[in-house]
């Protein structure tokens, strides 16, 4: 996808023209023309749409389904300087069996850790089918030379990471050096293939630092054009992290990108989603924006740590009619 030129599949009338509707040199000016040619976003309208979606009322059977789906979409995360192998193993155990006495309770999608904990997590998750995701590329700031970022990525992949969560160079993006951002993403994508592996690449846009919705949309397209398998809102270390309007924009982007190129990209809001109620709002937004094709852990994830506990409490509440409270779920 990325190289000297960018080949596009465009739609003209009802016939799809494959190939060369647009051939743009991938320098900063070419990318700028492409990204700034996307339809603009009206912030007031986008916020209002997200708020409207948040008023959907998901009850009874739909709620039960949504809660289980949300559990299956969680990237259970610990990204602290104080992380220990013991804590990571505990998290893995919890992710595999969130409700040890209820075998029908699904496990989470992935455990997300720093690169040095990948081997520990991989061992703890052996045989569970749960993925190991590793943050890389000088997470969370992304401020390191490219070689260091690539080495960081390669090391995590070698240690067994199934998924890499990279951060984009916001400095380059905000100053209009789109080519640098694109090349870096493409290079990290290459590093994901180290040693014959093929780790999925999630590209963190850090939308809290991108300032405008137009930028969020442009960064989404830039990441997708550069080979991202997922686009992710935030590191969780910057406020605001994931918000519903930003996730809505990203879902619209992946939908439009698939319509235009045929390639489906996933979305991962991360940071700040703590309650089951919020998670359900996101699922409604997925359902009514990108559509049901994205309602699967293969295409939508929640990057979260405390969310899982609330999902479990709400699951129990729905099953028993009684709210048990935070003392009845494990703190990580």
């Amino acid at each position, binding site marked *: 996808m990325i190289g000297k030129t960018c080949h596009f599949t465009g739609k003209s009338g009802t016939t799809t023209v494959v190939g060369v509707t647009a051939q743009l040199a991938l320098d900063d000016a070419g990318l700028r023309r492409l990204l700034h040619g996307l339809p603009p976003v009206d912030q007031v309208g986008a916020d209002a749409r997200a708020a409207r979606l948040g008023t959907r009322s998901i009850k009874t059977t739909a709620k039960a389904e949504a809660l289980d789906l949300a559990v299956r979409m969680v990237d259970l995360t610990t990204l602290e300087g104080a992380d220990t192998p013991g804590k990571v193993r505990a998290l893995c155990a919890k992710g595999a069996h969130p409700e040890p006495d209820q075998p029908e309770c699904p496990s989470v999608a992935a455990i997300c850790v720093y690169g040095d904990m990948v081997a520990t997590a991989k061992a703890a998750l052996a045989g569970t089918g749960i993925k190991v995701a590793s943050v890389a590329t000088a997470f969370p700031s992304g401020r390191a030379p490219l070689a260091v970022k690539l080495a960081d990525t390669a090391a995590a992949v070698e240690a067994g990471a199934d998924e890499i969560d990279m951060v984009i160079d916001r400095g380059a993006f905000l100053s209009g050096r789109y080519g640098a951002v694109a090349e870096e993403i493409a290079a990290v994508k290459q590093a994901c293939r180290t040693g014959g592996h093929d780790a999925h690449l999630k590209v963190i846009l850090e939308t809290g630092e991108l300032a405008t919705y137009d930028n969020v949309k442009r960064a989404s397209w830039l990441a997708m054009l550069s080979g991202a398998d997922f686009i992710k809102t935030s590191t969780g270390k910057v406020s605001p992290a994931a918000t519903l309007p930003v996730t809505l924009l990203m879902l619209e982007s992946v939908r439009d990108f698939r319509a235009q190129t045929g390639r489906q990209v996933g979305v991962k809001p991360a940071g700040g989603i703590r309650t089951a109620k919020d998670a359900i709002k996101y699922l409604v937004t997925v359902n009514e924006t990108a559509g049901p094709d994205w309602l*699967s852990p293969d295409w939508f994830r929640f990057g979260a740590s405390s969310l899982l506990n609330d999902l479990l409490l709400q699951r129990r509440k729905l099953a028993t009619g009684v709210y048990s409270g935070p003392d009845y779920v494990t703190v990580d």
Partner: protein
Amino acid sequence: MGLFDYAPAPESRSVVDLKPSYGLFVDGEFVDGSAGAFKSVNPATEEVLAEVAMADAADVDRAVAVARRAYDEVWSRMPGNERAKYIFRIARIIQERARELAVLESLDNGKPIRESRDVDIPLAAAHFFYYAGWADKLGHANLGPDPRPLGVAGQVIPWNFPLLMLAWKVAPALACGNTVVLKPAETTPLTALLFAEICQQADLPPGVVNILTGAGATGAAVVGHPGVDKVAFTGSTEVGRMIAKQVAGTSKKVTLELGGKAANLVFEDAPLEQAIEGIVDGIFFNQGHVCCAGSRLLVQESVAEEVVDRLRERMKTLRVGDPLDKNTDIGAINSAEQLAKIRTLTEAGEAEGATRWSPPCELPERGFFFAPTIFTGVSQAHRIAHEEIFGPVLSVLTFRTPAEAVEKANNTAYGLSAGVWTDKGSRILWLAKQMRAGVVWANTFNRFDPTSPFGGYKESGYGREGGRHGLEAYLDV
């Protein structure tokens, strides 16, 4: 449908205490009408909700007489800050009883509970709050140093926003020191009667607000009564004309807010995703029963196909059905009569050669429902391009240049509202000046606020409601 079916999420009806029958509200109490009764029906189920008294000329006489007495002896003499206390109190009670009002509105009107809960009732309260604030500041409204009220206001309101239209009429009238005889629409009288209870609860002096239920003849009697000093009407252009004729040659002041056939202009540089939402809000809000609905979509040729494709995709997610379900986007058409009118006009659209499309959606077996519909390939000459349908039916037309957009948008007998979608500020300002419409929305549609005046050009009526301008209609200036 897909993986994620929303289970029914009905709002409870138990907050509403429906009586089997209701009388007229005259002089602060409920009294029997002299002309029998009629039934108000839930349009979503066709069940009878309650019997409501029919007011005749004798009831109108009495109501106008008590309104005059209340005007002369109490309300017009009361200092503005005292009047404000009552109006603020009414606003607060509307907020306190919001859930009850919302459920009752959805039952009687058929509109989705999401809209009555999030739009109608909060806006109605906001209007009372806003005009309560004006009551003691009328001398500072640029309408003269000491503007005087007019007297008794005869007000006739439509069925599309029953309580909200009541608020638009009653709040400024009371703030300015007038008393009121109001006739709600025949098919939606119930929230007005609940409002009468709220007036009692607020200890509003008897006779200041009087509510007479009934049909067209009752409305004509209110409008034509010699004791009425001011007539305010919202409804069809046809009835508006009759009223204008009826009051011609009298000293009555009149404001009319009538029909519309608004253009929603989408330019190629528009924020498309939000424009789609605006188109949906413009025409499918309140089942399209909105006089300022964006019922004509004018889209620039270069993006027409993309806009229509996206609109179709979006329409597939609209949920039509039980108005009391919190996830319903499009509720019931208000009456069998209105449903028949929508059917007639959409059939005419097909017969004239436009292409009709609706998303696949199952309509409930009982009740009055109509699937959201768009027509493409519409020309200016088609009936669906210039007649007001007052239903969830959108006519899509295209334009090539801004000049053509203006020409087509203004090529209508109406002129209530218009919408403009573009990222270019200069174009918004230019278009706003070109549009012969009372309200021009930029990158939004169907937004209402008590501080903003609302009203029409041409056959959409005259006079303004809302904002400082709305005071003028109720003051002798």
